[in-house]
């Protein structure tokens, strides 16, 4: 067995059933991979790429959903010995000196709050209410599933998630088309909140998303002393989400051009 490490898992699967140009290409995944590899090496953790979902039909069972089904088996099959696991979207780039978030979890289920587009969150929570027996979900605890840290003790949560998803599959697939508020995030939120487990929330710089909505893409144009965009200067993990996905490749490329020298060893 390999030594026990904390691991960062990035799902990187290009779905076969989608036109590759829909999201403006997939080159952005490579920037994410390079940056996370650097960060893991620096902090003594292991980067694992989740590249083989267990169910081939990624239209019915999206990668975003399957990653939660598969994660423990996937690691076991690869004989990866682990302590904590962070599953992070490939649309993210960690700042080269991002603090080690594994030290901030207290071994709890750890996430970042999702409050950028609260209208979207509200509609998602309302939309999925029926399938969760009208549970009174507290929106102020809603988290983003783009970045979740957990350990073996949380396996029952993911088992419950899979069980619920499979049981009400047709309803979930229908909700994905009608409510149109994501795939796995809201169901996972319901499962976690209904379970009553202790959830730890990381400070905002660890999950900086909706950069345009937050007005963080530019620098301090008044002092005009430092051209560094605010998100690079003040964020630890940048998520390139919350905007038209077709522009993701370009924005991540531009960002990578600004910072890549920081990741060269």
């Amino acid at each position: 067995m390999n030594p026990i490490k904390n691991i960062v898992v990035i799902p990187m699967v290009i779905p076969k059933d989608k036109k590759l140009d829909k999201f403006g290409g997939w080159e952005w995944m490579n920037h994410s991979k390079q940056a996370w590899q650097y960060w893991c090496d620096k902090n003594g953790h292991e980067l694992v790429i989740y590249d083989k979902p267990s169910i081939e039909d990624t239209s019915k069972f999206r990668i975003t959903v399957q990653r939660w089904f598969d994660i423990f088996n996937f690691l076991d099959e690869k004989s990866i010995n682990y302590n904590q696991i962070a599953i992070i979207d490939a649309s993210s780039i960690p700042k080269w000196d991002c603090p080690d978030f594994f030290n901030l979890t207290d071994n709890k289920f750890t996430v970042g709050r999702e409050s950028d587009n609260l209208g979207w969150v509200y509609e998602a929570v309302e939309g999925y209410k029926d399938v969760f027996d009208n549970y009174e979900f507290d929106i102020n605890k809603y988290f983003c599933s783009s970045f979740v840290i957990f350990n073996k003790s949380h396996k029952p949560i993911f088992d419950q998630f899979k069980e619920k998803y499979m049981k009400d599959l047709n309803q979930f697939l229908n909700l994905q088309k009608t409510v149109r508020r994501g795939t796995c995030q809201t169901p996972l939120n319901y499962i976690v909140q209904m379970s009553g487990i202790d959830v730890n929330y990381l400070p905002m710089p660890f999950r900086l998303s909706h950069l345009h909505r937050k007005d963080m893409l530019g620098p301090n144009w008044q002092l005009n002393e430092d051209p560094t965009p605010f998100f690079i200067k003040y964020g630890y993990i940048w998520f390139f989400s919350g905007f038209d996905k077709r522009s993701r490749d370009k924005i991540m490329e531009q960002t990578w051009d600004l910072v890549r020298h920081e990741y060269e060893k």
Partner: protein
Amino acid sequence: MKSKKNIVFMFNIKISNSKLEGDRWLGNRSDPYTYSVKSWQKWCDINDAELFVIDELLLPNEDMAIPWQKFYIFDILEANEISYDQIMYVDADTIVHPDCPNVFEMTEGKYTFVHNEGSYDWILRSMENYSKYFFNGYMFDWWHYYNAGLEIYNGKHKDFAKKVIQFYNDNKENLMKVERAFHGGTVQTPVNFLIHLENIDYKLLPYEYNMADMNRKEILREDLAFTKFGWIYHFSGIPNNTNNTLTNYWMKKTYEALYEK
């Protein structure tokens, strides 16, 4: 002296002429603030608190902008022989839900406020600009930057309030210059810095207790979605809000939905 109560205080001032650019207290612009006053009065009645509305300026607005004047609250209450336990300042463009839990019970006796979620371009520029011109480059964690539209303090913070006034008097001209040059707010950013530099023990409440910039979060909409999961609504940061028309629209609509059902 009367028995000690928790106090909610706010300004509701009408100014007929002002030299301050964009003065939100000018003319009819402050009309919707009556909805705020009425909602807080009802909340105070439910929660055994006392509402204290200041409708006259202590100093001319041009000498000391209204937001700075709130730090005279301890003197004002004492001059009026009002005994207090905790004091909550709220902006007059807020409306509280009648079922809002008693926030005074959440403070642990600390200086209490809510992080300002909104335009971080504005917040970070404001922080950097004030840092440069007043605080020798000092910075604090930006995700602890608070919105001064709601803050709770108590007698322990009387000295701090005096320091804020002293800071204003010592830096008055420069503060006015920086405010005019950068438009990064009046009292909010300097007081954020002073909280940290004076090592004031503080508590952050979640967004639901001061829901600023709701339009940015796409919840300022006709179904009043924000009333379903939040408690204190702050009608700030509304785009295209000429003469506060939209503030009036949303505050009236919200008040009527919550209190005149």
